[in-house]
């Protein structure tokens, strides 16, 4: 098995190497790339004995233990058979493809993707772990997508590739689901183990689900009705690809999968009925559709579909004989279909057309090709002594012994076989017959590499026909044995003697020939019938896809309408419903606990309500902004009233700064206009009220049961603040010590905001414009020249006292910032740009904050732990202890001051410059 896997590695390595060569020397690339698959093929030949004797090559390695996935490979009968097709035909296709695509830009990707595909197929053929198998399975779809799209300039090719991908991809996902369920039911993903647990699976309630999902995977891959439509489209791929993927190997993967699952899922009526019916219908329909074609590749494609139907039907019948017939037919079909495809490609290349009604006389021009074509066609027609004859005999035998519907099945099979004969004649004989004028041949079509593949395969068909034991004892018996899970021992024979079968065979050929003779009339008739069919499955698929995309577009436009107001409405609705759901599910904890009502806050609340109503009702921008300021001051007052002086201070400062910001941009925003209709206003009010009421009830509910103070983490903070953190102002100690990390983030937020504001405003005016500031009156300047130093002084006092009394870095920084900005405002002679100064403040602040964390690190203490140096008595401030938390607070102070300075000066300057350029 190692050789096999090393071969796979060689192939994937080749997929990376040979494309590089193929750009210039495609033929060489073809020959060289065939080495690896030929090597595997040879190794496979050595293994036939072992496999026949049930000594199966295996290999295993751990891969993803968490998912229960190991790289288990195991080459059983069907696997060996499929592997030989993949490598044998694959090698020839690579050689053929090198010749076919010489000089084409498609050559390089062809080699890359075909070898990727080959790897994937070898994986499918040999994987024992179902998920590993699935991985390779999906890779085949992917490779197929890329290969169908090789002629990607054409829309048709892109569409065909997409169809194939979507159909097989969807099937693949179904298969994955089936595998996962199967794995959980069977307790293992090992095919070998599962094959011994067939009874368990079949009796499981999940059986039907598994079955449906698995056959969905198989049917889409093997182009069974109604998923067949992607296959004829896939003929948009270059011929070597069609020959390999869409006739010999990939489409067989579905059949192969069914064969592998037969011991697990097979032998149940539903399996039998479904496969037989779908397979039979596909077989017949493929044949009939083939009759309507004139394009060589389309002809072959539909007949391939018919053959796939046959195979599925045989696995449905499920008798030993049917399975055997299936396995034989699998090989037979590959041996004639692949060469016919390749021949069709050469014909196309030689003459520039694939239309059978136009082609003739090629036999004289290309005799060797003609021989190969004839051999393959005879095999396809089921004439002795070709292997096709053996296949057909077995087919009929299986069909006749199919049980219940054997007569019907046989008739269906008869029809399909007869059509096969017709197709064979059309493809393999008709173009080569001489009916007068000989065509001109493109010399590019005369290359040994183009001929060797068809010849070898066609000859192999003849050879095996003559010596059927080549195939029988080793391969077929082993494959059938592993599918039906019991030893079989029957030889393949070319000659069964004169029997009913022979008669049927003969009649088949005769009917086929007759159909061929009247081919034009038949085609017209079938065409007429097909026209009557209103909707084909490809149409349904396209229609469905179009509706899906349309629906997707509609849903997207519905949800992503671009209206911010409605986005906010959605948020509010979600909020209200979540609150409602929570309250309904838990109920109220109790009536809200409320302390004694105090007169002042109640009054303030009433005034705030007044301001709020004013803000809503007024259409004056100034009014709205001032009302907002009023509310802010009210909140500050409430903070002060409930023992939060630090908060009140911060709130007052921030509120003022916000007011200043608004004042600076207000003029550049338009006056408030009444955009909304009255009705919409009413709706909005309703929504706002709903959300507001829900929120209020939620808050009251939470207030109904809060945790006692003593159990809060703050209790410990209050106790430890002075003794351990050397600060009397617990709030400040929390900010710079207990939760200094919050503050660290917070100063960053401020710095970011400042940089953002500066960035947004950068370049919003010309540089070096001298603008006289209307506000910088002499009186104001004089006043400010007093105030700035005072404010800075106060800010420093606030900073130093912060640890013990209201104040601290933030508050101090805000005051300092206000002072600095005032000074800028008052300077009449230049625009108030602070230049790099605020950035330096910010940087200095951040580095100070960072440095304050270092002593602890150097002293081997915890990150950001306070390190205290000693205490100092300062005027006004009093006795204060100094340590890293204080240093940290200085950092905060610097950042905040820098931020205020940057934001405000940039705003003022942007505005001023705009003014200056306006006039």
């Amino acid at each position, binding site marked *: 098995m190692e050789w096999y896997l090393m071969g796979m590695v060689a192939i994937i390595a080749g997929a990376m190497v040979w494309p590089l060569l193929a750009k210039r020397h495609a033929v060489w690339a073809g020959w060289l790339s065939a080495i690896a698959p030929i090597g595997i093929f040879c190794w496979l030949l050595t293994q036939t004995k072992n496999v026949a004797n049930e000594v199966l090559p295996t290999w295993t390695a751990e891969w993803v233990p968490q998912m229960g996935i190991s790289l288990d490979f195991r080459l059983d009968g069907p696997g060996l058979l499929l592997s030989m097709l993949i490598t044998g035909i694959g090698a020839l296709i690579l050689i053929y493809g090198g010749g076919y695509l010489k000089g084409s830009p498609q050559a390089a990707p062809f080699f890359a993707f075909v070898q990727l595909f080959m790897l994937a197929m070898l994986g499918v053929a040999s994987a024992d772990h179902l998920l590993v198998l699935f991985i390779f399975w999906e890779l085949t779809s992917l490779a197929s997508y890329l290969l169908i799209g090789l002629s990607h300039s054409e829309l048709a090719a892109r569409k065909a590739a997409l169809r194939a991908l979507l159909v097989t991809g969807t099937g693949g996902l179904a298969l994955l689901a089936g595998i996962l369920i199967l794995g959980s039911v069977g307790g293992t993903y090992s095919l070998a183990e599962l094959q011994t647990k067939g009874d368990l699976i079949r009796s499981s309630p999940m059986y039907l689900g598994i079955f449906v999902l698995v056959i969905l995977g198989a049917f889409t891959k093997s182009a069974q009705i109604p998923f067949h439509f992607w296959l004829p489209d896939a003929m948009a791929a270059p011929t070597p690809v069609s020959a390999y993927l869409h006739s010999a190997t990939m489409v067989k993967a579905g059949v192969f999968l069914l064969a592998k699952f037969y011991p697990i899922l097979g032998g149940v009526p539903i399996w039998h009925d479904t496969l037989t019916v779908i397979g039979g219908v596909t077989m017949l329909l493929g044949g009939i559709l083939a009759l309507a074609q004139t394009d060589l590749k389309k002809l072959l494609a539909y007949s391939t579909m018919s053959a796939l139907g046959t195979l599925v039907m045989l696995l449905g019948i499920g008798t030993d004989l049917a399975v055997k017939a299936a396995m034989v037919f699998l090989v037979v079909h590959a041996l004639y279909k692949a060469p016919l495809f390749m021949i069709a490609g050469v014909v196309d290349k030689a003459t520039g057309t694939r239309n059978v009604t136009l082609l003739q006389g090629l036999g004289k021009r290309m005799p060797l090709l003609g021989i190969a074509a004839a051999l393959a066609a005879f095999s396809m027609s089921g004439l002795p002594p070709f292997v096709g004859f053996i296949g057909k005999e077995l087919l009929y035998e299986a069909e006749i012994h199919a049980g219940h519907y054997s007569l019907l099945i046989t008739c269906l099979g008869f029809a399909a076989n007869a059509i096969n004969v017709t197709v064979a004649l059309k493809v393999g004989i008709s173009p080569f017959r001489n009916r007068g004028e000989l065509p001109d041949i493109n010399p590019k079509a005369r290359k040994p590499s183009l001929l060797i593949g068809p010849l070898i395969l066609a000859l192999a068909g003849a050879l095996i026909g003559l010596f059927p034991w080549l195939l029988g004892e080793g391969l077929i018996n082993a494959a059938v044995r592993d599918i039906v899970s019991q030893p079989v021992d029957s030889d393949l024979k070319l000659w069964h003697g004169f029997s009913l079968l022979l008669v049927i065979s003969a009649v088949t050929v005769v009917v086929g020939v007759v159909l061929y003779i009247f081919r034009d009339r038949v085609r017209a008739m079938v065409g007429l019938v097909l026209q009557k069919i209103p909707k084909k499955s490809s149409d349904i698929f396209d229609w469905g896809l179009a509706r899906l995309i349309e629906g997707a577009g509609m849903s997207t436009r519905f949800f992503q309408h*671009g*209206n911010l*107001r409605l986005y906010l409405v959605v948020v*509010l609705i979600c909020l209200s419903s979540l609150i409602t759901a929570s309250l309904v599910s838990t109920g109220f904890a109790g009536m*809200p*606990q409320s*302390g004694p009502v*105090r007169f002042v*806050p*109640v009054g303030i609340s009433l005034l*705030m*309500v007044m301001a709020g109503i004013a*803000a809503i009702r007024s259409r004056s921008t100034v009014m709205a*902004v001032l*009302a907002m300021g009023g*509310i*802010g001051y009210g*909140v500050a007052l409430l903070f002060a009233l*409930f*023992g*939060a*002086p630090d*908060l009140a201070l*911060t*709130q007052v400062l921030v509120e003022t700064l*916000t007011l200043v*910001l608004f004042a600076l*941009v207000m003029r*550049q*925003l*338009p006056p*408030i206009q009444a*955009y*909304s209709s009255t009705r919409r206003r009413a709706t909005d009010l309703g*929504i*706002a009220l709903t*959300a*507001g*009421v829900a*929120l*209020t009830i939620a*808050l009251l509910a939470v*207030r109904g049961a*809060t945790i006692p103070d003593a159990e809060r983490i*703050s209790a410990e903070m209050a106790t430890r*603040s002075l*003794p351990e953190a050397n600060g*009397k102002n617990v*709030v400040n100690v*929390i*900010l710079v010590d207990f939760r200094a990390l*919050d503050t660290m983030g917070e100063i960053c*937020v401020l710095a*970011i*905001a*400042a940089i953002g*504001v500066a960035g*947004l*405003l950068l370049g919003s005016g010309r540089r070096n414009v001298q603008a006289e500031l209307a506000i910088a009156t002499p009186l104001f300047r004089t006043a400010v020249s007093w105030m700035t130093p005072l404010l800075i002084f106060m800010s420093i006092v606030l900073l130093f006292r912060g640890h*013990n009394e209201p104040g601290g870095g933030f508050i101090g920084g805000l005051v300092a910032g206000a002072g600095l900005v005032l000074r800028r405002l008052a300077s009449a002679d230049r625009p108030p740009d602070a230049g790099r100064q605020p950035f330096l403040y910010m940087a200095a602040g951040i580095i100070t904050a960072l440095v304050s964390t270092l002593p602890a690190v150097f002293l081997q203490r915890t990150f950001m732990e306070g390190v205290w140096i000693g205490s100092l008595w300062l005027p006004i401030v009093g006795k204060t202890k100094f340590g890293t938390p204080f240093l940290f607070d200085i950092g905060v102070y610097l950042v905040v001051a820098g931020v205020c300075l940057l934001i405000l000066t940039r705003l003022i300057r942007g505005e001023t410059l705009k003014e200056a350029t306006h006039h």
Partner: protein
Amino acid sequence: METILILLTGFLFTCGFYLMLRRNFTRLLIGILFISQAANLVILVVPGLGPGFSPIVPDGATRPLEGHPDPLPQALILTAIVIGFGVIAFAIVLLKKAYHGLKTDDLDRLKETDS
């Protein structure tokens, strides 16, 4: 007292929501400000209000007076206020810029970048 202040915050929230749903930039901003004021107030009120003095250790004591208000929500609010200031400062300038770039302050006309 808490109940009354919760009702007040509810009122502020409602005002804020309503203002936010208007189509003007200015009202949107003011709506956001209302909501953030209310949110700050909520954090102070819901855990319970103090009697009026602050959580500062008096001279000679080792911990704040008995019955002091919870200092932690105060610290949280302080952080939230400052962060809110940064955010609002940016938002104000952004909307100013938006008005200059898009030549409208009607939010309903901002539909170019969606699907």
